[in-house]
């Protein structure tokens, strides 16, 4: 290969690099996925212990709003456990992804990450609101399937703006969501699978694929 050809090759690889870097957020770390999954599993384990293993959502809902009025200790526990899972998962997710971006010399907060978050948020917020509406109408059983379905669709939507692998995670979440709609009452276990196990498996695969 002549020097000139090497120059051309260098040009082409730089072009490809810029095209990818400017249209997709590529700093997503596999460790973020693993930590999100672990947070979900710990939160689920604590919840399982708190309700003595009676994790059927109809039973829990019945406990929450029985005729004698709301069960405030249980309600408070669910709110705190949920908030802790959410915040720790987001914090660890941001931490590992920021670390990876720094290592690669890339920015974390730029056009590509903003686009990624907006496109992740649209189906997620719609799904979240729908779940609140279903709680309002008392159709408790369909809340777990909907969370998984909308999360899966959010991931598929976001996959156009980041590593394409997210798409497969999204497809699996949708599959789990549909299955959990068949097996109503087992929402807790589908949550453990979808938000815990799948994140850990996916994060591990991503880590070895891109970061080793």
């Amino acid at each position: 290969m002549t020097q000139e050809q090497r120059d051309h090759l260098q040009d082409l690889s730089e072009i490809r690099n810029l095209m990818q870097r400017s249209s997709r957020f590529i700093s997503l770390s596999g460790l973020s996925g693993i930590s999100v999954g672990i947070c979900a599993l710990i939160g689920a384990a604590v919840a399982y212990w708190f309700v003595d293993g009676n994790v059927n959502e109809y039973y829990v809902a019945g406990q929450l709003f029985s005729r004698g009025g709301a069960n405030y200790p249980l309600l408070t526990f669910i709110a705190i456990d949920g908030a802790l899972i959410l915040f720790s998962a987001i914090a660890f997710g941001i931490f590992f992804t920021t670390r990876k971006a720094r290592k690669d010399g890339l920015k974390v907060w730029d056009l590509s990450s903003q686009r990624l978050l907006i496109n992740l948020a649209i189906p997620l917020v719609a799904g979240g609101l729908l779940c609140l509406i279903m709680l309002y109408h008392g159709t408790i059983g369909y809340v777990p399937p909907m969370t998984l379905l909308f999360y899966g669709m959010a991931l598929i939507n976001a996959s156009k703006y980041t590593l394409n692998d997210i798409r497969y995670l999204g497809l699996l979440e949708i599959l789990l969501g549909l299955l959990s709609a068949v097996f109503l009452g087992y929402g807790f276990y589908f949550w453990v699978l979808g938000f815990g196990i799948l994140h850990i498996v996916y994060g591990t695969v991503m880590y070895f694929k891109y970061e080793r």
Partner: protein
Amino acid sequence: MKDLISGLNKAFESRIRLGIMSVLMVNETIDFNTLKDMLNVSDGNLASHISALEKISYIKVTKQFIGKKTNTSYAVSPIGKKAFQEHLDALEKLIKGND
């Protein structure tokens, strides 16, 4: 503008211009500062390359006001897109060629 033998476009001889075109090919529009961060160049340097590409109608420049600030955004034109694709084809051919 095209080199008849290699098919390479002289307008893309500079790395920075190649960079500007690469980013614009995959983004509908992009503003000055994002482009600057992406390419890691100075204001003046980027501005001069942008105006060179604008002069030959490879990129379109849109200025608008957001409040009191001007916001300038850039997009690739159909001619620019075609020219860039031909340039890429020529590069590829040269690399694959006689090695």
